[in-house]
């Protein structure tokens, strides 16, 4: 086992890692920028080292400074948390070459999953279903018609050089295909200088459901069930829950099984998350894989009763998994709300000094945060101030508990998205569990928030 872990991160996840390490009897070293000198993750670590000025690229992304800090502090492992250097394969390699333990998957895994095209190829070979479509650029109209019929309508035409929603056309019927293709291709040529298009199945109401993978260094792999992350705005997750209201026992078993089999095939190690797109018919498709601990890991901890950070550290040190799939059972229901320093209507960031702070409590309420009264939310970093996780016997009980807890949550001095969450928890599609990745858009379009909310 490791003796001293250096945490190459900040804020709540750094504190989360400190808590896990302390329970394992491992010392911790916090590194921080000058702006974070008084941060709780610095105060609660056994040791701390300032590694640079406020901008991330000179501190939390400063690889030489972090490795140097590991050396002078005598740390024998590095935990990267999420974000920052957590999915930087070169950094992982440098950590290992320095003779330190890397708390995450092997660098080759990080590199493979970091390249979307390679990740999809590898996962197709490993047996994960993919969204049906053309494997590459569509050559001509005749091929397009053939492919579209195979894929099944509606289909989406995407410009090979497009992105961010631009250069896309949804085609619902076969007889529109030719016309739409010519228009889209001409538009793409004008906009991106490249008229190449590809085609894939269009999912009207996609849900984002991800499977938590836990693997050791000896070829043992299990999954810890799923997290439903469809409450998103512009691809930013806002709320996550486990289990997913869209899965039944059979579908969960099937998704989990193919995920675990794929991970065994590529000899994945440590923690990881496979993101799937789930359609209305219960078909699921591989989207991407995250090779790190995730922000929303606490909902999985709540329903499995297992500390994922301790598990991650233990496995990185080479210990055996010592769990069978049968021993993993999901109990109850957990919901995580991300509390961000942002305007609840415009979603503009709202950094600044927190003048009053009271976190909710009571049975089944957990708050992971480094916020406190007089804490300053810094403009240099992420706007997430806290994660509130509620756990109850059932989904309706968890929603009631989340509403109750939000009533107790006081954050003054900055704006937060708490009013947004209060609306969401009353929004019928969410309450019914019938929502998808576009539900937040519909909620925001539907009714203006009541004055003073």
């Amino acid at each position, binding site marked *: 086992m490791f003796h001293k872990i250096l945490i190459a991160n900040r804020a709540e996840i750094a504190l989360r890692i400190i808590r896990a390490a302390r329970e394992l009897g491992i010392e911790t070293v916090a*590194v921080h920028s*000058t702006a974070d000198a008084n941060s709780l993750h610095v105060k609660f670590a056994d040791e701390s*080292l*300032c*590694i*640079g*000025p406020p901008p991330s690229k000179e*501190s939390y992304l400063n690889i*030489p*400074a972090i*490795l*140097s*800090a590991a*050396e*002078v*502090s005598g740390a024998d492992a590095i935990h990267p948390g999420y974000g920052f250097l957590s999915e930087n394969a070169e950094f992982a390699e440098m950590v290992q070459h320095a003779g330190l333990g890397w708390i995450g998957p092997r660098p080759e895994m990080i590199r493979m999953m970091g390249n979307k095209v390679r990740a999809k190829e590898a996962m197709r070979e490993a047996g994960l279903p993919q969204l049906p479509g053309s494997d590459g650029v569509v050559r001509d109209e005749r091929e397009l018609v053939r492919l579209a019929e195979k894929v099944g309508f509606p289909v989406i035409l995407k410009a090979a050089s497009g992105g961010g929603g631009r250069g896309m056309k949804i085609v619902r019927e076969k007889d529109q295909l030719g016309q739409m293709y010519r228009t889209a291709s001409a538009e793409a040529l004008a906009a991106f200088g490249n008229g190449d298009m590809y085609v894939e199945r269009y999912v009207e109401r996609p849900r984002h459901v991800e499977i938590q993978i836990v693997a050791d260094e000896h070829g043992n792999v299990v999954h810890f069930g799923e997290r439903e992350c469809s409450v998103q705005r512009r691809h930013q997750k806002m709320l996550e829950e486990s289990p997913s209201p869209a899965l039944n026992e059979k579908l969960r078993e099937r998704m989990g099984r193919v995920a675990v089999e794929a991970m065994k095939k590529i000899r994945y190690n440590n923690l990881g998350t496979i993101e799937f797109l789930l359609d209305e018919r219960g078909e699921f498709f591989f989207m991407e894989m995250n090779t790190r601990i995730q922000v929303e890991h606490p909902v999985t901890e709540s329903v499995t009763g297992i500390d994922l950070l301790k598990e991650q550290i233990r496995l990185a040190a080479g210990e055996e998994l010592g769990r069978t799939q049968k021993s993993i059972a999901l109990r109850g229901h957990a919901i995580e709300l991300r509390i961000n320093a942002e305007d609840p209507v415009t979603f503009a960031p709202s950094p600044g000094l927190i003048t009053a702070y009271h976190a909710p409590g009571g049975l089944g309420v957990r708050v992971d945060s480094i916020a406190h009264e007089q804490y300053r939310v810094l403009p240099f970093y992420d706007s997430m101030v806290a994660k509130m996780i509620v756990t109850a016997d059932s989904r309706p009980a968890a929603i009631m508990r989340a509403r109750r807890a939000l009533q107790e949550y006081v954050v003054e001095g900055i704006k937060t998205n708490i009013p947004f969450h209060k609306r969401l928890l009353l929004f019928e599609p969410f309450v019914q569990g019938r929502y998808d990745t576009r539900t937040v858009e519909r909620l925001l379009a539907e009714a203006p928030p009541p004055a003073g909310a």
Partner: protein
Amino acid sequence: MDVEKLRAILAALQGTDVTRLDWTNGQERITLRMGHPPAPVTALHAVPAGAPGSSAALPTPPQVTPVVAAASPAARDNTFTVNSPFVGTFYRAASPDNPSFVEVGQVVKKGQVLCIVEAMKLMNEIEAEQPGRLLEALIQNGSPVEYGEPLFRFEPV
């Protein structure tokens, strides 16, 4: 307060001995401080030690960006500190057998080597960015130092 009014006040104070003006008018409050700016901040830069003849296998040292060493808040008037440009290990001499680069009381020239901060197995020489007399060495030889940590206190000469 509008800009024109402020300009007028500033113009009126030019050439006088006034060093500070506090102005309150209802909700409006202005504090003006005239004269010289606070003691200039000291910059220093680190130069990787050439160490001729020794450890030829060392890789090319990284480019080191100069760091502005702000005067420490605890600084007595008129003194300035030289701060570590990165996290590493602090050495006062080139090797255990060598004398310290600088001793208390000594006057250093701009560009003179003050110490070494070792980071990533590279010995980085830290030079004086301005002349001064060494008042205090703040860090013990061989200790880890953080980014921005004051290493020496000087007084200008």
